[in-house]
């Protein structure tokens, strides 16, 4: 039996259940204890599981990630909350030079089963540096896995998989979707495998690749364009950003011959480029038109009064579809 949950509630439920089921699981971060997190993702968990399992830390991301690495080395399964994605930077060295490499350096002797959860993306009228989308940094770091759910159901299943994963997972939570809609979420624990994309809508004329908050823009644009022009878009939710699910990507492109990638991140060296390159590798001859990228622009995310124009809009996605199909 399921309940209708927001993504935020689905995430809380995943953590609550894992805390209940496995002694080794703990959560740590800024304001996640007594306060229940600035987005309330950990609401009630401190009271329920106690101060040793749900830990308010000092304001120091390198200390948080670094000590979580130590906890993980010594048998715990820490879930770290970084308050906003840009605030991971002070802990970047710990993530890139240690978490991602410990298994490799010790030839499997010591692993770092760590999850780093963090809200990411724009669209919630946040202050400066509260809206970044720099998944590229992590997808360029061997040893890390990167996940970004687009709905409550996937969020719970992917987070449980991430917590159970023996390797460090960067778990990107689209802030804009936290409370955007509810969805039936099974009460039991279930897993969505890391590394698998999902075809959320079948189509024949063009494939849209998207993830996180951009999936909805993709679906909306696809619906509108179908109404307006009759073109049928296939929409693929990547879900895992590293390593990418190449098979699903290539299979779809072989079917449609045209593709569009929608992401919030800056265009240059964004993940869109990697997807284009995978298609170039595996399915160039199937391509009927250049692959279009509709992305955040190559500028720092601007103040929120104009952030909606920084982000890909349904309008821009539609334009991209049209350009690609009429190429």
């Amino acid at each position: 039996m399921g309940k209708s949950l927001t993504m935020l509630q689905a995430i809380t439920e995943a953590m609550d259940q894992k805390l209940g089921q496995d002694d080794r699981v703990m959560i740590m971060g800024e304001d996640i204890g007594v306060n229940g997190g600035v987005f309330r993702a950990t609401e009630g968990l401190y009271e329920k599981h106690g101060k040793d399992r749900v830990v308010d830390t000092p304001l120091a991301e390198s200390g948080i990630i670094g000590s979580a690495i130590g906890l993980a080395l010594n048998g715990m399964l820490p879930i770290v909350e970084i308050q906003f994605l840009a605030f991971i930077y002070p802990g970047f060295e710990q993530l890139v030079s240690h978490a991602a490499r410990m298994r490799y350096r010790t030839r499997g002797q010591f692993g770092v089963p760590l999850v780093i959860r963090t809200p990411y993306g724009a669209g919630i009228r946040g202050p400066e540096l509260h809206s970044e989308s720099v998944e590229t940094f992590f997808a360029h770091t061997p040893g890390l896995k990167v996940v970004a759910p687009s709905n409550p159901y996937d969020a719970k299943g992917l987070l449980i998989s991430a917590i159970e994963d023996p390797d460090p997972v960067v778990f990107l939570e689209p802030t804009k979707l936290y409370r955007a809609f509810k969805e039936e979420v099974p009460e039991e624990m279930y897993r969505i495998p890391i590394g698998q994309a999902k075809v959320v809508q079948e189509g024949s004329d063009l494939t849209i690749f998207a993830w996180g908050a951009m999936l909805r823009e993709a679906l909306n644009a696809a619906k509108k364009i179908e109404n307006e022009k009759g073109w049928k878009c296939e929409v693929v939710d990547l879900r895992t950003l590293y390593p990418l699910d190449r098979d699903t990507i290539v299979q779809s492109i072989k079917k449609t011959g045209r593709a569009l990638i929608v992401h919030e991140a800056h265009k240059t060296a964004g993940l869109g480029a990697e997807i284009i390159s995978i298609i170039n590798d595996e399915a160039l001859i199937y391509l009927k038109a250049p692959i279009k990228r509709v992305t955040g622009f190559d500028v720092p995310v601007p103040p929120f009064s104009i952030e909606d124009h920084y982000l890909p809009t349904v309008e821009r996605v539609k334009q991209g579809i049209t350009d690609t199909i009429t190429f």
Partner: protein
Amino acid sequence: MEKTGNPIMKAHSSGVEPEMFQVLTPEGEIVETIDPKIDKSLMLKMYESMLLLRTFDRKSINLQRQGRMGTYAPFEGQEASQVGSALALSAGDWMFPTYRDHGAAIIHGQELYRVFLYWMAHFEGSICPEGKRIMPPSVPIATQMVHAVGTAWASKLKGEKNVSIAYFGDGATSEGDFHEALNFAGVYKTPTIFFCQNNGYAISVPFNKQSASKTISQRAAAYDIPGVRVDGNDIFAVWLTVKEAVERALKGEGPTLIEAITFRYGAHTTADNPAIYREQDEISTFWRENRDPITRLKKFLIKEGYWNDEQEEMVLKQFNEQIDAHLQKAEAYPKSNPLEMFNHVYANESWHLKEQQQELEQILKKGVNK
């Protein structure tokens, strides 16, 4: 009974007892010699500045509630720290505020309408008046502290008589940048003032979860620089301390760490609910009634015959008008043009930004971009 074989216990025996420099008690009594002297006109300036800021702060919260501004970080309760420190500076000094220090920025010369613009998410809210050195509020915690080392270092290298002041909170003292900034400043003896407003909380986290250390000022010893703890709600104490720090800095004696004990009455930001993590009503009523920075100075001024209720009424009226005028200016400010986002990424234009700007321009011409 001391065992000689216990070097650690021996070394750790002398605990640090938190002392706090106070000049003006909450009852409005002077308990220390004031040197250098604070004359009447400066006292009145201090008082009026705090009144202006409190009026501004309350107005801002209302504007946010009415949807006329974005998330806002209030500073009510911290006026003595912000005004006292800013008034001890010279016009050309470098200021590095956080999101909560627009009070200090205003006193140092930032214009009210620009502060409104900032919280309304206009690009132009981050600009300071020509010739001033007020940096935009620093959002990533503690990062601005090293900048204030760099600007001060440059002043020193160029022989310019300016200090740099970095504002930060108690939570910021846990970040690595706090440590690196103090250490660099110690090594290069830069004319930097590290001004910590210890308001007891980093969002919901009380200082006793932030660190096992009892005070922040005690950390200065780690870098062999002076550290001092002052009553941050006592504007005389704050001003005197910052003044001394400025003088030391200008004499080439290097940086100072100042911990000003204070309290924010309200929420961390308008997005925060302090009742979740503290006895908000009780604790903020306690501070308001017993420790308020404005009340205590008012008591003193009235006793001295420097101030009365008519004056108060008059300046409040004037401040309200002034703030409203700035608000009007801010609200009448041209709407941000989305195409502006492509400017000032670099000093010189690059092909990729030019094209992306054109792409957006095309879309905007169509009328909708949603």
